[in-house]
């Protein structure tokens, strides 16, 4: 498979997953606000800023908006073309990557990506979002799920598929950890947190909902939301499909299917790092998390996930030659029509 194609499939999948996670996160937190009685600027800020911080974009946010309110934060996370991680940008990137590999993906998949892209670019999207944010986010989330279903159902299980899987699970592990980190301010720096206050409990259930984990958690632990159990569930659950451990296991499998190297061995750094992280997660308990403190643990975890992504790029995609300036490239691609390449050459 062409390195460039592998790269595009990987990022297409990551960006779709990213849009879905952001949609869920914003939706849940908008709804959560409805449960609070009255909120002043400070309280709003305390509510929204951790969410902006969770994607690491707080500086960018402050450069564009004076205050953190539901409106500014959702605008930033949903429609802002200036925020590289907004839903709008993520879908645009997913679509651009899909466009580059149109010959590799099923028509149905392409059409669905194109449809959500056209929708987000239409005035109707903003109207839907104003009229009923919940329905709007529902559309984004469902499209992502539909895209995953289409991918599952139409893509041949070749290398390209495993790059898609790798992108999806790497993004998911990262996002789950970030969503969990949103509430870290209510936790002790070290040691397991005790029972949560009523307000905190709402916040922690929002974390679960942001990961579509509420029902699964309830089935396991009952309706009482305990921060320690939530953290353990989202990080270490063996069979919940959005937990970090589950995601890393699938990431690891995908990497090994790409290279054909067996479990327990490795042929490149991506496999080494992914295998090692998986082993750590498999041999960890909740106590191990809280010993270093949840926030610190997540910080280290995210560093490791980044390193895996970087190593994957080095192993399969990286091309040791200069990539031309994007503008120059674009100009030259366009110039080709001058020579009669377009449909447009009659007089």
């Amino acid at each position, binding site marked *: 498979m062409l390195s460039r194609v592998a790269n595009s499939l990987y990022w297409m999948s990551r960006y779709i997953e990213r849009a879905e996670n952001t949609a869920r996160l914003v939706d849940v937190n908008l709804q959560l606000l409805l449960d609070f009685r009255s909120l002043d600027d400070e309280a709003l800020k305390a509510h929204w800023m951790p969410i902006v911080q969770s994607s690491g974009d707080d500086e960018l946010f402050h450069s564009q908006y004076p205050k953190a309110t539901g409106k500014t934060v959702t605008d930033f996370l949903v429609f802002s073309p200036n925020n590289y991680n907004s839903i709008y940008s993520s879908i645009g990137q997913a679509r651009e990557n899909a466009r580059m590999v149109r010959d590799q993906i099923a028509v149905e998949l392409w059409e669905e990506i194109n449809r959500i892209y056209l929708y987000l670019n239409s005035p109707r999207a903003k109207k839907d979002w104003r009229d009923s944010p919940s329905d709007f986010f529902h559309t984004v989330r469902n499209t992502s799920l539909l895209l995953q279903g289409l991918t599952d159902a139409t893509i041949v299980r070749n290398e390209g598929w495993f790059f898609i899987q790798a992108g999806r699970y790497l993004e998911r592990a990262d996002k789950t950890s970030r969503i969990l980190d949103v509430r870290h301010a209510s936790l002790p720096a070290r040691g397991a947190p005790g029972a949560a206050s009523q307000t905190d409990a709402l916040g922690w259930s929002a974390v679960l909902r942001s990961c579509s984990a509420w029902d699964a958690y309830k089935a396991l632990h009952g309706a009482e939301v305990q921060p320690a159990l939530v953290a353990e569930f989202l990080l270490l659950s063996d069979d919940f499909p959005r937990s970090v451990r589950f995601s890393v296991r699938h990431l690891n499998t995908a990497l090994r299917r790409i290279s054909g190297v067996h479990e327990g061995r490795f042929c490149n750094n991506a496999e080494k790092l992914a295998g090692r992280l998986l082993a750590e997660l498999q041999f960890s308990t909740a106590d191990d998390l809280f010993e270093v403190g949840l926030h610190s643990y997540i910080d280290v975890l995210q560093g490791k996930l980044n390193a895996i992504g970087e190593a994957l790029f080095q192993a399969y995609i990286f091309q040791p030659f200069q990539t031309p300036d994007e503008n120059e490239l674009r100009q030259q691609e366009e110039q*080709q029509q001058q*020579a009669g390449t377009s449909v*447009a050459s009659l007089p």
Partner: protein
Amino acid sequence: MSSRKPASSPLAELPEPFRKYDVGNFFDEMLQADGQVRPHYRHFLEHFAKVSPEEFEAKRSAVDLAFLRQGVTFNVYGDSQGTERIFPFDLVPRIIPAKEWEHLEAGLVQRITALNLFLHDIYHEQNIIKDGTIPAHYVMSAKHFRREFMNVQVPRDIYIHICGTDIIRDDKGQYLVLEDNARCPSGVSYVLENRRALKRTFPEIFEAGGVRPVENYAQELLKVLQHTAPTGVAEPTVALLTPGPYNSAYFEHTYLARQMGIEIVEGRDLVVRDQHVFMRTTKGLKPVHVIYRRIDDDFLDPTVFRRDSALGVPGLVNAYRAGKVSLANSIGTGVADDKVMYYFVPRIIKYYLDQDPILPNVQTYLASEDADLKYMVENLDKLVVKAANEAGGYGMLMGPHATKAERDDFRKRILADPRNYIGQPMISLSRHPTFCGDEGFAGRHIDLRPFILYGEKTSIIPGGLTRVALRKGSLVVNSSQGGGSKETWVLYGNE
């Protein structure tokens, strides 16, 4: 029918939406001058009459929407938003009976055969020049003549593998060649997509229509590409080289690559080592043997042509010269596109095949011939003037419609650089009924671009891209200038 009172006009017999149709002073593809339906349109009209205007409108917008959703679009340049537009598609098909198609086919095969012999000759012995059939300076000064490419042996001596020749009909219905596109002609994906769209829209018309299929184009193209593989390569790897996603024809590139089941590559995916071409894959370098390139000569290899090319592959031309990789189309085929060379094509056919051209050219004046130049500068109000190497309807003067200032400007340009200009009388292109919004069905000017494949055998998909000038009175069918497209049906029979 015979019991009926003779109608005042044959138009009364037509389906309702066509009853006010005005043929005007043009050759109309569907209706004769007296309003009678040409025989090969009868079947279509009978079925079409059953479609109500509301139904038609609904089908039309469904097709537009489908194209947008599928991304059957072209990119609009000079627009920082990277706007993509659909190529407007008119649902009334243009129909060509078998007999006319055979004539076209014979003419096109003759033309591409002669052009390939011509290209081989001018890049080798240059007999046609030595014999004085074509003055040397015309060839040597052609913008796309590649000196670097003299005496290179190209696989199977084929230069133009894929040709898109533009054909028009004049006011008498005579088919004329307007130009050859022998570099990277595009538009074939619309031929295939338009057919799919129309089949979805009017399945019942196709059932008994006797329309020849176009679906096997990609297979034929792949055969041509494989046929030209370097000697000794049993199972060649074929790839399509695209400039990239910003190119206007990118949709077509991905479409064809997928249909053929080959890789679509950009310049940066390829690397040349020891005169062999490889693509960079996740498993290392893999050899490539045949490249269907959709980028221009100029950009192909920065070590030979434009140094600043970001799209090309350093060393590619060397690999080609060494016979380790094949290119389709070959390098330097642009000479055959030169509008001055167009003037000589009838002579080229005569010279290499000893035949008269089956499809005539449009009468053409060469500004670099003294007599022609005099006629041109004195009669600019009667002529269409074109720059020799421009495309897309640029660098052109429509004399009869131009202002005096525009004509004066062109006169200066022609006198300053006669080699670069040709003149042609204004051809009254044939018209075809086309849906024109509030105006209903009205006549609009059309042309035709068939796609010719030249490999082990020469094949032409029965049909081609019919472009239509949607603006009232306009003769310009370019997509960049308000043109649209139509389905082209070639029938098994004559009616």
